[in-house]
């Protein structure tokens, strides 16, 4: 869907493309799957599953963005 790339000869890394980016779909797709977490039991510290599982998704988001950032940093080939 992108137009043909106009690469300059000296452009070292003029693209965002990386297979690691696919990992970012996880924190978008998983929180949408209500069947994973839409229940009361088991409770954790009194929190129904509905709540503590969704809190865990925050860690999923932090984890995936951190990994993708680290793996696609400039100077590092994917």
């Amino acid at each position: 869907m992108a137009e043909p790339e106009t690469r300059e000869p000296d452009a070292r890394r003029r693209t965002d493309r990386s297979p690691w980016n696919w990992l970012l779909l996880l924190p978008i797709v998983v929180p949408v799957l209500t069947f994973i977490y839409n229940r009361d039991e088991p409770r954790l510290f009194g929190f129904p599953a509905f709540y503590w599982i969704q809190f865990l998704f925050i860690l999923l988001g932090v984890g995936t963005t951190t990994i993708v950032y680290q793996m696609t940093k400039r100077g590092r080939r994917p």
Partner: protein
Amino acid sequence: MRDHITEIVVFTLLFLLVSGMGFVAARWRAPKDMAHLDEWGLGGRNFGGWITWFLVGGDLYTAYTFVAVPALIFGAGAAGFFAVPYTIIIYPMFFLILIRLWSVSHRHGFVTPADFVRSRFDSPTLALVVAITGIVATMPYIALQLVGIEAVLKTMGVTGDSLLARHAPIIIAFAILAAYTYQSGLRAPALIAFVKDALIYIVILVAVIYLPTKLGGWGSIFDAAEAKFTASPNANDGITLNANNQIQYVTLALGSALALFLYPHSITGVLASKNRTVIKRNMSALPAYSFLLGLLALLGYAAIASNVKPLPGATQGTVDSNTVVPLLFDMQFPAWFAGVAFAAIGIGALVPAAIMSIAAANLFTRNIYKEYLRKNASHADEARVSKITSLVVKVGAVACIVFLDPQFSIDLQLIGGVIILQTAPAVALGLFTRWLHRGALIAGWVAGMGLSMWMLWQIPNPATKRAHFGGSAFPLSEFGFDTKRTIYVGFVTVLVNLLIAVIVTLILRAAKTPAGVDGTRQDDYFADEGDPRVDRDLTAVETPSST
């Protein structure tokens, strides 16, 4: 009922402290020349990791969010928890999409999303459409920040009988805010955000640890909530979702995430950062606020467990559910700490209100004033017009709250979230492809807007006894499906918008209608700090590409 003197004193002191900071901010990271929109409206485009974290965090998680989300949980239960998946989904989207907007804006000096659209699609009309949508969506959002402050003031008993007496504190607060935003621009909310976020973090952490010890632990808080929802006649409440509101829950989370990053104020916060690394690293750090928001949302249940009764609303017979969290703090905390908590919410309203008014002012200046009223406006003219517009925007927001029922602003904000989504095909998809035709994008926008208005008009709200604009959950039975399930309006309408845009693109291409010249190049979307082609004096809007 205790008297609220201690609370009011603590609140006022903290409020005065940040007001002072707002004025000093003009000299913070002192600009060479404030008479430039990059300085006033984007803080010099030079914010590093920490400032961006506080600024964007203070910007996205507004005072209204902090009172309205727990209020929703208090009233409806699990359905209100959508704020958590919503604020998880948004960061990977920022990471993949907004980073490109940062790069292309950095390269061309774009200040608003409409600047980008104008250059990308070579269409001032499409840019105007995006700008107006942004302004209309942002205005009620600013007004809602006042609703947040008002909930706190009401709880402290700062109310009067006459129209003027009742609203005097808000008018004063906004006058001070307007003055320092005028003077310091985006630097003011950036500096205040440090205090605001620090206070919010302290208050929430204390609340989630201290309140359960007083209310018998989280387990019994959830049980109390469940007992309330079991007893209520409403079928759609409860501490978990039911079969009918799950689609609404996820489409609302997805749609809100998409809407949030299209809002002009989020884009302003992102464009003010100094390089791509700052943004990418913040996408891992900003979810800390989502954690906070999730905990805060659960205070809605704590309010149920401690038998909070919301204060009466503006009209006879209604209740103002936004007061539940302030009331909970008032009941459970010592007076001085309740004062700190109220100040956190009050100051929390100032940061986003300032950024929103700056974002709306920038849209007006760049895409209406410079485009249509004064084509040869200088940088100093732009900065001056933006500063004045930011004042006008705030006066408008105050007038909305003083003279109209606050419910009107809430309705408008609901509509705002749906209509800002209609700019997604131009702004978000536009960052990846120019395939959609400029005429088709306008056609899609018209269709999306029309359908949004019709769908929102159809939704009643039995709780507030209104026939129209009662919410964003559209019953699928209206489309002829034999079901009780509901779906988020914006989700449907943006898909229709996109469908129309695709169809009209095919037609316009078949008819060989000119698509204009792309003012951007492929590698602009990856440009970073120190890019040799960045020319800060370049005014983006009239930059044709030479390739």
